[in-house]
């Protein structure tokens, strides 16, 4: 029945074409009457959504970031991506710069400090795109505390705005609150495998030079 020389690829594509039949299915117009990108950004919405998801939110000037980091992770070991603005780190932390650190070592760190690429106000989501000030995906996964520093001009209103700003070819991590599960009687429990604590530090626009 099946031509032995036919690859599975050809077989599947053939079946799909036969299933659709001639003429090739006419793509209907997709009505996009939903809210497009470009809505007004409300910072208080972002703060509310982040807090609602049990992330901690800090608002301060760029110069004060180090103090916030000190209050959370002072005296502890912290992983940082190579491109992190160094003035965000207090002298009180022991910084491990990720230059390809083994996962085991990253897992022993108490926390990680990164920048972000974009944040969505409406959903309380911060997005990392692995630029130099955010680093490899793994560094924000294994330590228990993630401090993410966000510039106000990186905040967008909704999901469509975020996708428009992102480069699809980069590895992307969208983070909405700390790791959580609802698998036990649908009770939300923070922190299963990812960081159990997410701190978002919001700083005014353009006060530092973002890496990447």
């Amino acid at each position: 029945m099946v031509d032995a020389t036919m690859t599975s690829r050809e077989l599947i594509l053939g079946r799909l074409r036969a299933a659709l039949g001639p003429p090739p299915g006419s793509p209907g117009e997709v009505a996009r009457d939903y809210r497009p990108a470009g809505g007004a950004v409300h910072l208080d919405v972002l703060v509310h959504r982040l807090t609602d998801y049990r992330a901690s939110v800090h608002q301060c000037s760029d110069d004060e970031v180090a103090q916030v980091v000190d209050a959370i992770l002072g005296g502890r070991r912290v992983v940082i991506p190579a491109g992190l603005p160094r003035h965000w780190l207090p002298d009180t932390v022991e910084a491990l710069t990720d230059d390809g650190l083994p996962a085991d070592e990253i897992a022993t760190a108490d926390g990680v400090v990164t920048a972000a690429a974009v944040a969505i106000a409406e959903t309380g989501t911060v997005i990392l795109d692995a630029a130099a000030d955010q680093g490899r995906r793994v560094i924000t996964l294994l330590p228990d505390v993630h401090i993410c520093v966000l510039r106000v001009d990186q905040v967008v209103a909704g999901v469509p705005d975020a996708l428009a700003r992102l480069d699809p070819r980069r590895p992307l991590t969208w983070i909405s609150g700390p790791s959580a599960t609802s698998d036990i009687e649908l009770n939300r429990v923070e922190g299963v495998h990812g960081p159990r604590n997410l701190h978002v530090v919001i700083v005014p626009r353009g006060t530092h030079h973002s890496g990447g």
Partner: protein
Amino acid sequence: MPTTAPRGVGHLRGDEPFPVAARRSLADAQLRRNLGHATSTIRAKSAAVIDEVPDWQELREAGSAIKADTMARLPELLQQLETAVVAAGGTVHWAVDAVEANRIVTDLVTATGTDRVMKVKSMATQEIGLNEALEAAGIEPVETDLAELIVQLGRDKPSHILVPAIHRNRAEIREIFLREMPGVDPSLTDEPAILAAAARRHLRRTFLSTRVAISGANFAVAETGALAVVESEGNGRMCLTLPDTLITVMGIEKVIPTWADLEVFLQLLPRASTGERMNPYTSMWTGVTPGDGPQDFHLVLLDNGRSAVLADEVGRQALHCIRCSACLNVCPVYERTGGHAYGSVYPGPIGAVLSPQLTGVEDNASLPYASSLCGACFDACPVKIDIPSILVHLRAEHVTAYRSEHRLPSAEAVTMAAAAYTMDHLPMYEAAQRGSRLARFAGRRGRGLPPPLSGWTVGRDLPQPPPQTFREWWTQR
């Protein structure tokens, strides 16, 4: 003749017909309590966050239209996806069915020389029975999603698309952990936070020492080759970034045309499924990224009956499903019988259509009848799949097939032909729905439908009909 999913492999067919299995779960009071609590909780959460979105109906409309367009161009989009993934350093495999997909994955794992893989929760790999195939080849699959882990450790079957261990309560989960988790603290309590922490400790070493991971995909963007996995716990991120090799098994219907299309589905999925504005983690990757994450990436594109579903113009829209599970959570039949009664990894309303479509209706003949046709699933579906119409269509198909084979119709077929006729004729359908509501007012709740439908409802707990049908509500708007 379209080619359906093969017999003897995977988990699309139950051992017994739905009514038989359902009767057993109906007698399980604990199960019904667990389910009732879970589905009502999730319904309330979901309704609240959907209410926040002013353009929910427009998003549903767009989601439905994008999916229809996708299905009409599926061969072209899959080839576009293949080109983009290969250009980004990935390898693409095509699997006609479960047998071939299992072989491809097993061979890929074997080639790495490892005997253990970790898995992100994935319906596609459950569908093809990948764990069994790996075990047969001497490879240990470790489920890393908490619910899947509970199911795996309990030597149990998943019963819900999103919350596979929804049928278990905290006391039962504690029992399973105490019995099956090596080195677990014996003073473990049944607090969800304590149980989750035990799973965290249990899996950490596995994450750090396993070199191959297997995932599914929620979306694949044809235009760019990006794949997306949506999750909550971070186990997905662990599997997607820590190992050397990543193998993703994806049903061919998961492709979407463009990057911008994600803006629709990433708004619809979390609110409809977990009732969150956004799930805690979404990972997206395109092929391999030098220096970051797995350096060997394989994408397995799975047919396994999907081309047969595509061939059915009425039933085709079942392929639009984004596996949010909203239809399960609103279904009065699912709420009473739970997922196991459906016999397939796809339970609930979508399972009642998709399973028989993938296997051929004769192999899952009772499933199209596992519904009260109340329409709640259609109303809840974020991509507007008209599940009741597909159910009726499949019932008619079953009746026709049975008649031509047996000359004489079965008792079930006679009853169901009447039902199918009724459902096909709108005024009668509405009258029947109103009739069943009258039955409720007459104190006959759960007593079943009037003849000729009573043949079906004898021995079945018919759900209480809604006070108003969706169609009535719609007409009044």
